[in-house]
């Protein structure tokens, strides 16, 4: 990077800030100078204008267009080719299966470990520090996390000393080192481990906050009834945090369905590890198969939908009970 480059970048930021400030200033000017007649309408419209513009151009129109593109072939004629490809081509089917494997494993394991950890450390000495250690990965990018774990999974051939922790452990127990990332199906599982590593902290923090929301009286009452720790956990803690559990589980499920960075960085979808979000990128932006990419995006949307409907239903029921 030369000094001129740096100056150009700073200039861009300054210009960006200036234009942005001017836009906001102009909006405020018109908001305050709105005509007397229908004043509230004017002001409302101006307050909403920028956000709505972004949302319509960036989400509403694209979502409709992508849905249409999914049903068009390369020449632009209507067809179901993209979906036929998706459900008949072995590599595409594998992508769908992998996504199902991801979403079947990652959310449940993260939630369970997060919950267990939150319960173990609840009100213990040094709870704060325990929390930070597990929570930290949430601030690390998926790309950074992938490099961290790629190093753990590193493979050295022959008798050379292993520098990846996982293979070192395998060798220490007398096993043969494995090329983890090239070996199907263990590679998908090891990619899921990265997702679990990142998401457990999220689950733990939310669940820990929910656990602290359970009234102490309930736990003490259960103790007076002579219950043991496991019974208290089953009958007091879990019902008390059901809402948080649903939120955590569904949020991680959705994040898992959309996982892209990990697969892209670790294997780029090779060695039978591709998932829908990665394949969508590959098809639409690498292979110029816009129709197939759009169909995959649409499938992603369809997969996310029931999870959200479930989530909203549970939350609504809870609110009614209260």
């Amino acid at each position, binding site marked *: 990077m030369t000094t001129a480059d740096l100056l150009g970048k700073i200039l861009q930021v300054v210009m960006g800030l200036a234009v942005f400030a001017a836009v906001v200033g102009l909006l*405020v000017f018109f908001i305050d100078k709105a005509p007397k007649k229908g004043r509230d309408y004017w002001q409302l419209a101006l307050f909403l204008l920028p956000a709505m513009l972004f949302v319509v151009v960036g989400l509403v129109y694209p979502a409709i267009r992508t849905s249409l593109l999914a049903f068009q072939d390369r020449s632009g004629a209507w067809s179901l080719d993209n979906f036929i490809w998706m459900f008949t081509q072995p590599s595409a089917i594998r992508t769908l299966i992998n996504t199902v494997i991801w979403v079947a494993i990652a959310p449940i394991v993260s939630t369970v470990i997060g919950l267990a950890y939150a319960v173990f450390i609840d009100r*213990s000495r040094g709870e704060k520090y325990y929390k930070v250690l597990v929570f930290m990965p949430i601030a690390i990018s998926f*790309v950074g996390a992938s490099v961290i774990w790629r190093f753990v999974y590193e493979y050295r051939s022959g008798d050379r000393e292993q520098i990846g922790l996982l293979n070192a452990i395998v060798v220490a127990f007398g096993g043969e080192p494995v090329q983890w990332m090239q070996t199907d199906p263990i590679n998908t599982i090891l990619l899921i481990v990265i997702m679990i590593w990142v998401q457990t902290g999220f689950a733990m923090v939310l669940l820990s906050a929910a656990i602290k929301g359970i009234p102490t009286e309930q736990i003490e009452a259960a103790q007076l009834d002579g219950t043991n720790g496991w019974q208290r956990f089953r009958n007091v803690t879990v019902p008390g945090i059901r809402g948080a559990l649903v939120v955590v589980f569904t949020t991680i499920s959705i994040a898992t369905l959309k996982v892209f960075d990990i697969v892209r960085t670790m294997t780029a979808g090779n060695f039978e590890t591709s998932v829908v979000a990665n394949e969508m990128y590959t098809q639409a932006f690498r292979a110029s198969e816009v129709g197939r990419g759009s169909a995959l995006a649409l499938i992603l949307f369809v997969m996310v939908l029931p999870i959200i409907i479930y989530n909203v239903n549970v939350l609504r029921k809870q609110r009614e009970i209260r």
Partner: protein
Amino acid sequence: MSSVAPADLPIGKELADGEAAEIAEREPGTKVGRVKKRLTSRTATIAALVIAVVWTIPTFGLLVSSFRPAELIRTTGWWTIFQNPGFTLDNYASVLFSTSRSSPQLGAYIVNSVAITLLATLITLTFAAMAAYAFAWIKFKWVNWLFIFVFALQIVPLQMSLVPVLQIFSTWLRPMQAWLHDIVPIIPEQNYLPLWLAHTMFGLPLAIFLLHNFISDIPADVIEAAKVDGATHGQIFFRIVLPLATPALASFAIFQFIWVWNDLLVALIFSGGTQDVAPITQRLAELVGTRGQDWQLLTAAAFISIIIPLIVFFALQRYFVRGLLAGATKG
């Protein structure tokens, strides 16, 4: 985009309870303190310790390795650091300052990440706060439906938007960027504009939803009083609502900052991948592809890319957790 509306997590109360637990730690005689003692068994402590160690070791290994000479990283495991001692800052020097063509040259990408994140956060936050204010305090019946619609947009996955938005950008934005480059040659033809706009588009629904929750909780008396005094909506927004909403704004700002900083997908599609625009995550992902065996570079580069969000995270953890509790995640 996200998904969930954990609107009824009682945030304020939980934080208060957390503090109660801290107090209890100091006073073991109190009620909470006694419960605490009985709950913490030895097995639980050991299990927690194991999880904590397993979760920390991968990052720790990366950090240790980033300070080891290339030759040692290549031939020995980082856990043998005491048998094979060696310490160097060369790895960091070479990923940051080396100017040879094939080296990572991370400096430029860090500047890009900062530039992208700064404006993407600021624009999203401002426009979201304005919309949230209008939704909460300018009453029309159909506006509520509009709000629900915007809220529902969170369920549209990012992937649904990418192709059409890229097409729109290359039709409308590309000529503008070229024109700007002609007038101010110092600004490259590939500039930050597409990334700023894209991140704003994708971040707005969640931001509007979170800020709306907070802004609609401002007591009506305050707003009414200002109106009686003759304040316009513009004045109310800047003089009353924004200052009162500062905690919520801070929470979301940190949230958006970390999300934008850590993003790879949006960058891959809208940045063009050159030193002029690409953020550090994209560069790191690229290095994994091209220099996958040069661990002395990868470890140092990875650590540099994660250190800034980590600093933000540690410094402002309280706000970050609050934002997380209020909004679950997006992505």
